[in-house]
């Protein structure tokens, strides 16, 4: 995460080296200030360059904010350090002896300047503007003085005047973390107007950095939790349903109650929640469905890997199914064993450990919540999260219907079927390589092998693109058919579906479509097989369900056959099928 302990010398050195080796689009940052902030430049550059952002920070001229704001070109980000104490030199003590008229005149002038600067900065994509703060000079006062009031008035004005592109930063929060004493360097303030210390700038950078990372699409997206001793106190398989704690009724339970509320808040702000836990799935489901103290419920969890597989495989599946990179995942667990394994195998995943001292857990989680900070939703973000959102909406819709059939009917499901479509060959190959659960034969193919099938008359590849009223799932179903020379008989070489469309009976409509197409082409007999793997037990009776007869059966596989004239099909009424364009 953020290494605040790195020495200033090492920052200078590392920053220079990073500057030489980073390529890619420059991210130009201008710092406008009425104090000397030059130390900030290297520190800020370094922490962004470390994240592969080719940052270039330039300072404006000393105390030239108004003029500089007019002359900016090709700047991606402007940071404004407008120090109230230096509006006019020595203002923090001068203002306290000014009369009413003078104060008002000064306040008026500063407001005009602020408006002018904001107007000039209107076209800059992002402006980070520090709120005015009297704290460094006034923290001892019991009674508010004129300097406090001036800052307060100006902040109110600033809030009203700030446009969409301006983010106001409360530097008091930074000063609080660092302490007043360590935030300023009085020597250099009085000799050179260099008010803030290196420590302050490091902390300030850590504070605003997530906003910049979010603009660069580097926010975390998925938060994956272990269950026992991570979401509640205790182990459900040992302590039992009634023995686990997550409410303020017990001391430790209170901590987990806060944890669950924090996580719920993240969920509401759009963070995808996942479970990755070694447990009996039914135990965990039971807790989420029926435990009276749970704050988090099934509908908040987008993806669930509750099984006895290792956590690395489960996290890989999570990333895969959600179609996100490993570096968008944050994983939290209480077991060093599991965390170390993940750290070693998937270094891109951010891992967190539940603190030994449980009372430190809530503050740790509050800090980590910033990893998910999203400045605003760009079009790109919305596209990227649309899929997850749709998923959540579907889950939501599901709870409104009394039975599954009714729910499925409401979805307005549609399959668009592509036959031998060249443009989707990469996706078809990927599906054969990645699909494990709903996969009858689990044959893996490369793109070039799929291409050969497309060109070969003896094969036909059916794939579907699934839609419902919430959106599109993408290419998620596949069937590869192999014909005998006389074309009277064919074999189903592969039949699979991506897990995100399981549970909607799409497979039956897809199969109906395939059979009727084959029938129309003169096929009389179909042979299919189920090849057992450790993951595909859910489809072991698929051919039985669609009316095939078992020809032979062994431990490893079952071979089926169907006389096409006897096929009845499932005739699922709520799924429409149609040919895609270009077939």
């Amino acid at each position: 995460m953020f290494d605040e302990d790195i020495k200033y010398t090492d920052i200078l050195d590392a920053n220079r080296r990073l500057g030489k080796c980073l390529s890619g689009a420059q991210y130009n940052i201008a710092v406008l200030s009425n104090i000397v902030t030059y130390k900030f430049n290297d520190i800020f550059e370094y922490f962004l360059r470390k994240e592969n952002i080719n940052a270039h920070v330039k300072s404006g001229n000393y105390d030239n904010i108004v003029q500089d704001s007019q002359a900016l070109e090709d700047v991606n980000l402007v940071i404004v350090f407008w120090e109230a104490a230096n509006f006019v030199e020595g203002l923090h003590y001068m203002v306290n002896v000014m009369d009413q008229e003078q104060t008002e005149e000064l306040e008026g002038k500063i407001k005009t300047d602020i408006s002018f600067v904001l107007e000039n900065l209107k076209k800059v994509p992002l402006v980070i503007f520090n709120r005015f703060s009297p704290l460094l000079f006034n923290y001892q006062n019991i009674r508010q003085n004129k300097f406090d009031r001036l800052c307060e008035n100006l902040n109110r004005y600033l809030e009203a005047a700030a446009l969409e592109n301006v983010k106001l930063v409360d530097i008091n929060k930074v000063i609080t973390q660092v302490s007043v004493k360590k935030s300023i360097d009085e020597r250099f303030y009085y000799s050179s107007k260099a008010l803030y210390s290196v420590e302050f700038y490091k902390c300030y950078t850590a504070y605003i950095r997530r906003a910049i990372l979010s603009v660069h699409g580097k926010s975390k997206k998925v938060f994956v939790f272990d269950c026992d001793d991570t979401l509640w106190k205790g182990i459900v398989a040992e302590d039992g349903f009634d023995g686990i704690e997550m409410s303020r009724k017990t001391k430790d339970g209170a901590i987990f109650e806060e944890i669950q509320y924090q996580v719920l808040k993240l969920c509401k702000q759009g963070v995808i929640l996942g479970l990755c836990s070694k447990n009996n799935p039914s135990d965990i489901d039971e807790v989420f469905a029926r435990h009276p103290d749970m704050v988090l419920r099934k509908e908040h969890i987008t993806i669930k890997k509750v099984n006895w597989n290792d956590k690395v495989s489960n996290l890989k599946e999570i990333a895969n199914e959600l179609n996100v990179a490993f570096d968008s995942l944050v994983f939290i667990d209480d077991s060093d064993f599991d965390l170390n394994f993940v750290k070693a195998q998937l270094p891109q995943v951010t891992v967190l450990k539940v603190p030994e001292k449980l009372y430190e857990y809530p503050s740790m989680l509050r800090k980590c919540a910033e990893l998910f900070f999203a400045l605003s939703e760009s079009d790109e973000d919305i596209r990227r999260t649309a899929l997850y959102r749709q998923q959540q909406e579907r889950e939501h819709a599901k709870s409104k219907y009394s039975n599954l059939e009714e729910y499925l009917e409401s979805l307005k499901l549609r399959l668009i079927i592509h036959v031998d479509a060249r443009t989707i060959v990469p996706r078809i190959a990927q599906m054969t390589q990645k699909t494990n659960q709903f996969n009858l034969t689990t044959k893996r193919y490369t793109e070039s092998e799929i291409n050969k099938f497309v060109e070969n008359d003896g094969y036909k590849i059916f794939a579907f693109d699934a839609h419902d009223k919430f959106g599109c799932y993408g290419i998620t179903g596949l069937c590869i058919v192999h014909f005998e020379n006389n074309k009277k008989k064919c074999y189903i070489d592969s039949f699979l579906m991506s897990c995100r469309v399981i549970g909607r009976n799409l497979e039956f409509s897809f199969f109906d479509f395939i059979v009727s197409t084959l029938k129309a082409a003169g096929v009389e007999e179909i042979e299919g097989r189920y090849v057992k793997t450790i993951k595909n037990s859910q489809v072991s009776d698929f051919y039985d369900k669609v009316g095939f007869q078992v020809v032979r059966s062994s431990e490893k596989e079952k071979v089926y056959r169907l006389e096409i004239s006897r096929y009845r099909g499932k005739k699922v009424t709520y799924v429409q099928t149609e040919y895609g364009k270009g077939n």
Partner: protein
Amino acid sequence: MCKQNMEKGIKKVMSAVFGIDESAIDEATSPDIIETWDSLRHMTLIIALEEEFSIQFDDAEIAEMINLQRIRTAIEKKVSNI
């Protein structure tokens, strides 16, 4: 701290602050020779040295520290057990 380590520490800091090779730093290194050694960099140098050696200089010392020899002397005065 031994003298050798101190010398190494100073050169490391100067090299990082001014963006020059450690081998290019000798007794003659001063603002007259190093182009990047201006008043702002001087502050950087002081802050980085203070952090490196966990010491703090006052105003008068800061103004004095304008070549390797003087930097060495200023630090020696602050760092015990050399």
